[in-house]
């Protein structure tokens, strides 16, 4: 299918074209504009509330959380949870290390694999382009089901209880192959490639020195999305890892929340067995959640410039 669309003004889908007619017949009235702004600003506040709740409860003092429960504005602030979180070399730190390593490894792998796989598919002189496009695309339509996947990754690929389990299953994506293929077609004129070839550069050199530098926004988009995907990944760890040594960050914080909710709700049935006051503090848990989100929020503005460009070009034009 071909989506026939004019090229969006690259990198700035928010800017509007100037009218060539004197008066702008298309501008909305100031009143409508005000109403839209109010509506959007209000929705933005709603969107930010969950983030706010987590952040504010992580800096609430434990005593005031225990006395009043979660509040939008706590009686007393405290940085205890963070001091505690960074002081001990416990499960959180291990999980953090695992997640950082697998995010780096998985991102590099996926940029290399997707970038390499998509390039030949964008070239007209690749004889097997149709076949390899279908080879990737078919996996988006059909799969062997969870049970088979579970058995194969554990028993045939032997990924259970390894660090590989956290990133290898997410290190490639047919979807991004198709986006990148379109990106190459749109952004790398074949004249440049042919000129380089005539000048004597080999296919690999052409790719690395001509194509890659022209495709930075697309590749950065792939990098961002796979980094986010692996950082936030919960499923790989759930399916493949039973050994706490290899737990990912998301899995660790989920298990913590899960255990505590269960213990608190059944505290009456387990009297004497569990001392509720000895559980990790509630603020500590919220601080864990904040630390999980932190790096993503920090990376967000850096990538935003690239990925809107990458996404819109790679995805729309065809």
């Amino acid at each position, binding site marked *: 299918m071909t989506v026939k669309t004019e090229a969006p003004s690259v990198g700035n889908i928010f800017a509007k074209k100037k009218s060539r007619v004197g008066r702008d017949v298309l501008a909305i009235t100031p009143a*409508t504009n005000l109403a839209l702004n109010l509506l959007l600003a209000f929705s933005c506040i709603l969107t930010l509330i969950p983030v706010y709740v987590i952040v504010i409860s992580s800096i609430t003092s434990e005593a005031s959380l225990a006395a009043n429960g979660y509040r939008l504005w706590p009686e007393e602030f405290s940085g205890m949870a963070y001091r505690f979180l960074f002081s001990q070399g416990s499960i959180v730190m291990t999980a953090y290390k695992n997640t950082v390593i697998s995010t780096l490894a998985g991102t590099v792998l996926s940029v290399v694999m997707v970038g390499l796989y998509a390039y030949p598919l964008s070239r007209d002189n690749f004889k097997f382009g149709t076949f390899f496009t279908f080879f990737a695309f078919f996996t988006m339509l*059909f799969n*062997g089901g969870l049970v088979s996947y579970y058995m194969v990754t554990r028993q045939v690929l032997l990924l259970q209880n390894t660090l590989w389990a956290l990133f290898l299953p997410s290190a490639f994506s047919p979807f991004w192959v198709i986006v990148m293929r379109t990106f190459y077609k749109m952004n790398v004129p074949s004249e440049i490639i042919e000129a380089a070839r005539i000048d004597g550069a080999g296919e690999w050199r052409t790719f690395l020195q001509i194509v890659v530098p022209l495709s930075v926004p697309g590749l950065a988009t792939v990098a961002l999305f796979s980094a986010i995907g692996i950082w*936030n990944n919960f499923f790989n760890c759930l399916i493949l890892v039973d050994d706490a040594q290899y737990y990912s960050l998301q899995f660790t914080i989920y298990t913590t929340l899960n255990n505590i909710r269960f213990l608190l709700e059944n505290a009456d049935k387990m009297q004497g067995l569990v001392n509720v006051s000895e559980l990790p503090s509630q603020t500590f848990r*919220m601080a864990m959640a904040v630390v999980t989100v932190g790096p993503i929020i920090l990376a967000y503005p850096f990538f935003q410039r690239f990925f809107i460009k990458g996404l819109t070009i790679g995805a729309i034009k065809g």
Partner: protein
Amino acid sequence: MSLDVVSSVQSPPVKKKRWGADKIYSNLSYLLMVLPGVVWLFLFSYLPMPGIIMAFKTYKLSRPPADYFIQNRFVYSLITSPWVGLDNFEYLTLPTNIDSTLTYVRNTIFYNLLFMIVGLVLSVMLAVMIFELTNHLLAKIYHSIFFLPFFISWIVVAYVVYALGSSAGIINSVADSLGLGSIELYKEKIYWPFIFVIANIWKYTGNGSILYLATITGIGRELYEAAAVDGAGKWKQFTNITLPHLMPVIVLLQILAVGRILGSDFDMFYTLPNGAALVKDATYTLDVFVYSMLRSATPLGYPAAAAFLQSAFGFVLILVTNAIVRKIRPEMALF
């Protein structure tokens, strides 16, 4: 996104030349480039495909004899386990299980349809609203904020649900101070459809609107100006210009969504309820059902049967949908 899988990759119909050394070299280089991806696809996508026959077998783990050609226990067991026809599927429809099976299938389809409709309407609305704003800086700020939740994991959202809705949560303390009864989120299933829909809107609307926004930005301004001069209002312009231009993208995304109608956003359905067993009837989708059977003492054939239904139905649905679209509007078909 264009998925012109077959059509666009064909080489131009120029006169066939003999394969020169240069052409062979190029194609060998290209083959080397796709190799890592091919290996990954083979290992993680194609290798599990034959395992789908587990749905028609009673899987028994056994050790291969020393002289057998494959020494892997799973592969050997898969090959040698006895065929049982549709027995595994019958298990899902036993009088004791039929109710829960149907409930989970209904949940899956219901939530997917809901998310498809709500997601589509809100994403398009957001894209149009942001496009119409006169202040570009504000538009950018709004969009950055709406896009942000896409980057936050479902597990963190599970914390938010807990902080808002647990017995010590914000909603309960507000309800308390107003003298209303308390809300037992993890014990009553009535709340969960709302939680899932809100969470889904929150996480995906900003991301979903990017494609639509980019398409709208690309529509020629002259079209709107001509329409405005002819007296068409904003709504008329939307239905007659914007919507037809968005249609290809919408159709494409909906075809793919139809193919996933028996699948689900596993992380969301699994983590938000936090394993609360009492709300199972509202929170279990087929994915979660298959996973929970997989991790229990249930024979593997049963979850395999449910997983088979998911894969097979999804595949057939996407083919049928695509065939219908191809019949009506060939240029919008996926393949």
